[in-house]
């Protein structure tokens, strides 16, 4: 119980710190910029709270660190664990880009060969795909979609992908809760 609220609090604090930093650095931001800053600081706060133990958090940090504009924000939020996280995130980035490319290429080759085989089969015997192969295709399509959704998900196999998805979902929910409460609070404030 304590950990739940404390985690949310940690996230909130880091997030607010990030927002303050953004605000102090730039004045007169447009709405879009502000939105991006909010989202970014939220993501980074998330990742830092998780201490980059999960893959998707590392991927988030990695993608954020690639953008040089965010360096100050990144350093601020990630804080003392900067060295570890940066290493981890950089490793993730490096691995992901190379390995993903390779995997994708190899998978494409495989798919091409399978497709050719299937065409041959069909042309030969007009075999109907048994239902489970159709299901497999559907599942594959959807896992691909999921990989695109979850940050850093491209280079994971199905098992870890599902774990990461679980984790990410839980986190997203927490993020939504915190943001919503903040929004309501500020609404009330403005209303009064």
């Amino acid at each position, binding site marked *: *119980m304590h*950990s*739940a*609220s*404390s*985690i*949310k*609090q940690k996230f909130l604090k880091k997030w*607010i*710190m990030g*927002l*303050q930093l*953004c*605000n*102090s650095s730039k004045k007169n931001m447009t*709405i879009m910029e*502000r*939105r991006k*800053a*909010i*989202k970014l600081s939220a993501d980074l706060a998330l990742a830092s709270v998780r*201490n980059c*133990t*999960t893959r998707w958090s590392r991927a988030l940090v990695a993608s954020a660190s690639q953008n040089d504009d965010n360096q100050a924000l990144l350093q*601020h939020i990630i*804080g003392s664990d900067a060295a570890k996280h940066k290493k981890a995130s950089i490793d993730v980035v490096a691995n992901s880009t190379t390995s993903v490319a390779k995997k994708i290429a190899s998978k494409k080759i495989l798919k091409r060969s399978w497709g050719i085989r299937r065409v041959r089969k069909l042309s030969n015997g007009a075999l109907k795909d048994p239902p489970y192969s159709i*299901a*497999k295709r559907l599942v594959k399509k*959807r896992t691909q*979609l*999921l990989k695109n*959704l979850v940050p850093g998900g491209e280079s*994971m*196999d*199905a*098992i*870890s992908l*599902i*774990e*990461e*998805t*679980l*984790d*990410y979902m839980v986190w*997203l*929910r*927490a*993020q*939504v*809760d*915190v*943001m*919503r*409460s*903040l*929004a309501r*609070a*500020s*609404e009330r*404030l403005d209303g009064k």
Partner: protein
Amino acid sequence: MNNSGGSGGDDMGFPDGGNSAANCPSSGMIANSISEEVPMMAMSSMSTLERPPISVDPFFTSGWDTLASLSHNENYGSSSLVSHGNFVGSSYPVLMDNQGFGRNGSTQLAQCLSDPRLQYIGSGSISEMVGGSFGLPELNHLANHGSLPNSASNINSSGCERNSEKGAQSCECQNSGEEPDGSSAGDRRRKRSPDPSSQYCSNKNNEGDNSDVLRLQNEKKQKIEQPESADFSKHNTKQSKDDSSNDGEAPKENYIHMRARRGQATNSHSLAERVRREKISERMRMLQELVPGCNKITGKAVMLDEIINYVQSLQQQVEFLSMKLSTLIPGMSIDLEKALSKEAHSRGGGATNLALNPGMGLPHLYAQGVLKGTLPIMPSTDQYRPLSFTGWRASSSL
């Protein structure tokens, strides 16, 4: 092989898994923080993961009776997962869900939340009532109108007691139901009625469905009994492949006991693949508990579809909320604390995620109206202090 990489992530809180069965009836602790690690939380953490998101106000519920029945049903379905122990990445206790849960009158909910079992039940059942988090924007809108805290609280408090009892009982029932099967570990061939989850395992070995499910459940029990690393499980899998071909009788206390069943191929490849498939189906089941309204869905494809929709909707919510915040807070740093303090007051100070942890800096701030409370948290960067301090001054003047 990819599995080794993937199963590396399996080193979840399985050290906690050993206690989970024993702790099931009593624990009720839903907090699920792996880093902080109370072993008891293992079960409750899974229970919390099972709960769909709480996006509905209490007054939406038609009644705690229905909720109790729903939760009751859910308990049976999900308690099998309870034994799984902590899930590695998710260090978000259930409480997190429940906090977003009661927008109004959530103080009473907070009291209910103090009993973890209540969280376990209340959150899940209500979200089931709502039928998912996809109606969130409207609910939010309604929630903002701030209606009926009292009635909600009464309902909550009354329902909580009942639900807690049922939750404990169902939890115990399920675990006790599983345990006898596990105790007769030697006889793995006991047939059970095929679970819906057996459909996940689209087997190449056609006879294998029931046994797969059975082994999966046995596997889980073994995980309870012996929390070990996934690498070790891989090792055992290889060992047991040999064992399965040679010795089919002696049940071993392995992490995953892969014995070839009657009429199944003892090919090492198929065994490994079966392990993999079972892992996937386990996790799919976990996900099923987490995503709202997915308890009746069987089948990977549909389940994945729901998951994708849910993740997308959550991401869209984040976008929407960040946009909203960007419009609401032009200053972005100025009145944050003030807003939070007001929120805390409006909720009675007991229900917000901020106020729940009395030792933390933010509530402390409210009393003083000074930034100093947050300073210890930050890595001290002096350049930012004066900026934020002026921000607080500005807010106090509002």
